Structure formats: C-alpha cells, structure tokens
C-alpha cells in the first residue's frame, strides 16, 4: 500500500471513523462463517443465526438494554426513520412531532415525510429550551417528542434523561452522535445509532425500541427473525459493529478523558490565536471528541480545501460547502456565524501532537484566506 496510513490527519470522525481494530478480525472471520440465511435450519444457516444472535446480545450488553430491544437496520438514517415514524404510527394521540431545531436532517426528513413538525428553539450554545419542549408536548395533537442525545455539529449534550414529558407522550432519541462514546440517556421509547460513527462498518444502523413502547412498523414488514427488520441481514457487518461497540465502550473512560482534554486545547488555542473567531457549543457538557468554530470573513470551502492541502480533513457547516447550498440549520438555530465554519472531531488515537499541528497551521491559513479578500 502507498500513501499515508488511513486516518492520519483525518479530524472528521463525526462523519465517519475508520474500522476499529477490534472489529477487523471479527469481520474477516464472519465473512466466511456468516454468509448464510439465518432463518435456515441447516448447518450454515444455524451458524449465521448464532452470529446474528451474538451480535444482538453484545450490542444490548454494551448499551445496557435488552437483546429483544435491538434491531439492526441498513443505516443509522434508516434507524432514525424507523424509530421515529414507528412511534408516530403507534401513537394514540396526534401525528405531530415536537423536536428541537437542531435535530439531524434524518429526523427532519422523517418528520417532513410522515408527520407534522412543531419545532422548539435552542439557546446560543445549542441546548434545547427544554421547558418549551415539555410545554409543546402537552398539546393533544402531539404524538412524539424527538430530541437528540447530543448535537452532531456542535457537540452539545441535550437534557434527554431530564425531560418530564406529559404522561403518555413517547420520546425518540437520535443517539447517532454519541452512541458508544457516552452512555445512553434514559427516558426514551425508541433510539437510533450508526455503527460507522463508532468504528464499526458502514451501513449498519441500530434501532432500539423499548419493550413496552407503542411502536408500529411505519414501512412494509418482512419475514425475518427480528420482526422490526427488513431485508437480508448483513451478519458479518453487524457482528463487526457489535465488536467495535464493545471495544469502544470498554475503552471510553480513557479515550473520552484524552479527547475531552484535547478538544479543550483546540477550543482555547483557536479562541486565543485566531482573531474574530467564534468557538461555539457547550464547552463542558459536550461530546468529548468534537468542536465547532467559525471564522469571520472566511470562505468555508476555501478553508476546507486549504486545510486538506496541508493534510487536515475537517467538515464544515458553511453554505458553500453544503450540498444544499444553505447554511447549517444547526448554526442558524443557534444564531451563530455560519460562514468560515469548521467542525473538528477527533479519531480514536488522536494525540496532543495532532491537535497542536492543526492549531499551529490554522491562524496563518485564516489570515491568508482573509487577505485574498482584503481583510
């Protein structure tokens, strides 16, 4: 193989993480052992079924839920759609979904497709106005409340477990940004996660539905082992995802402590060394590995491109870098600067040298891009 090792300079784990080392061997072994249809009663089918059951139990164990509450889906996005819309379909009340203004687009698309939206605003740090959320949930037409565990763009942790929702309104939580890294919050009826964000393979989502939840499949059903799942299971991938999740949970005390301190360094150095910059999101109650900031008078696309030329891969919520050509709805809802935006998220093995290298390069680059427009 030529070129740098995979992941070097990649500061975009929130978009996708490389396969966790613990998952690689499991995946390779399962590719040979887990190819068959887990519903079949012959030897190969039983083998696939065993691996699928193992994956479900390992995932449940890592997340602190029951095995029969775990469904593997084709993606995290699909888990969000299924989880949220299934609660809407099971609702005895109306079909309005009260959700924060900073939910992932998967939630917003699901609501636009199959429910009605009642959006609740956020504070400047991205935390939802939880009083407004609870108040809005009391309306009789509200069937579901949706609140993310933590924000995928700015890292702010939401008060999911602290909500006191009126009696029977179920809560959906999109836990894709935090699953594995942080313990699941409490209080949800359904939740969703995405394996490629914790170092599992792509195209594995996790849907969690509480045993007592009123959830009805919003899409066509299928005849699988798990009645909530659709289509032929990717047994090797879900087993590898489960192995990665177990490993991430086992090592998260060490990794989170290191990441949290490294992000503190980035927050402090960027604010001190780059003029006219806004570092956003809750500085303390946040995802350990992620920070977002915006640089005044800087073209986000130019910043992404120039950082990439110097070996740093980052994401941006600026309009010019988005497929939609509109600024990030998260930054917009927070009322913070949307241009010149950088979202930096650490990969598992990130070190002080990695973040210092980024912080060393950034001020000069920002100055150079500003100079192009005479600022």
């Amino acid at each position: 193989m030529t070129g740098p090792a995979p992941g070097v300079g990649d500061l975009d784990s929130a978009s996708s993480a490389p396969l966790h080392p613990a998952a690689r061997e499991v995946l390779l072994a399962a590719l040979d052992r887990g190819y068959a249809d887990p519903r079949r009663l012959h030897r190969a089918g039983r083998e696939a079924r065993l691996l699928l059951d193992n994956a479900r139990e390992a995932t449940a164990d890592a997340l602190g839920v029951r095995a029969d509450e775990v469904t593997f889906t084709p993606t995290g996005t699909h888990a969000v759609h299924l989880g949220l819309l299934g609660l809407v379909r099971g609702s005895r009340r109306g079909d309005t979904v009260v959700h924060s203004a900073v939910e992932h687009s998967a939630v917003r698309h699901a609501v636009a497709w199959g429910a009605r939206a009642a959006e609740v605003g956020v504070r400047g740090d991205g935390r939802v106005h939880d009083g407004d959320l609870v108040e809005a949930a009391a309306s009789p037409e509200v069937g579901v409340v949706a609140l993310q565990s933590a924000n995928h763009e700015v890292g702010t942790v939401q008060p999911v477990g602290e909500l006191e929702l009126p009696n029977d309104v179920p809560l959906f939580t999109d836990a894709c940004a935090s699953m594995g890294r942080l313990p699941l919050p409490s209080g949800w009826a359904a939740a969703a996660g995405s394996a490629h964000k914790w170092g599992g393979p792509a195209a594995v989502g996790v849907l969690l539905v509480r045993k007592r939840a009123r959830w009805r499949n919003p899409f066509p059903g299928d005849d699988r082992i798990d009645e909530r799942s659709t289509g032929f299971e990717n047994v090797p991938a879900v087993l590898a995802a489960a192995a990665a999740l177990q490993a991430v949970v086992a090592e998260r005390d060490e990794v989170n402590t290191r990441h949290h301190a490294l992000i503190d360094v980035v927050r402090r150095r960027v604010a001190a060394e780059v003029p006219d910059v806004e570092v956003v999101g809750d500085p303390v109650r946040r995802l350990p590995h992620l920070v977002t900031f915006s640089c005044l008078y800087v073209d986000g696309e130019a910043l992404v491109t120039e950082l990439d030329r110097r070996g740093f891969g980052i994401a941006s919520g600026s309009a010019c870098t988005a497929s939609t050509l509109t600024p990030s709805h998260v930054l917009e809802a927070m009322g913070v600067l949307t241009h010149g935006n950088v979202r930096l998220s650490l990969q598992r093995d990130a070190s002080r040298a990695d973040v210092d290298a980024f912080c060393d390069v950034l001020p000069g680059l920002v100055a150079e891009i500003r100079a192009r427009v005479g600022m």
Partner: protein
Amino acid sequence: MSGPDVALELDCRDLPCPMPVIELARHLGDVEVGELLAVVAHDPAAAVDVPAWCRMKAQDYVGEDLADDGAPRYVVRRLG
C-alpha cells in the same frame, strides 16, 4: 419604501457568502456612529451572519426588511 432612515445601502444581491458580511465590515466606517447601514443580499447565510457579525463586532442589529425590489435587506446601526 418606508422604513428606517438608512444612510448607506450596500448592494450585495449577487454576492456569495461570506461577501455580504465582508462588504458590511468594509463600509462600516462610511457611516457616522448612530447612523444606519444596510446590506441587501440574496445569500441565505446573510440572515444569520449579519446579526452574528453585529454581536461579534459590538454593533447593533436593527433587523431585516425588504429593499425596493423585494430583496432581503439587513439593517445595522453603527455603535462604534
């Protein structure tokens, strides 16, 4: 149109993000302290970025209205 008494209106209709905010910063000194400066922009980011700029640069964001041709216009009062 009626509306606030704007001392200077910047035509940034066709400029992409972040040029409207850059133009605003460039021309702040062209109006007196206490006067109003407006930027007209179709760029959807301007609706967020002009108020954010005002907060960061300690200027007063007056609000959004419409230019004569109906384009979004963002009005700022120079405080310093």
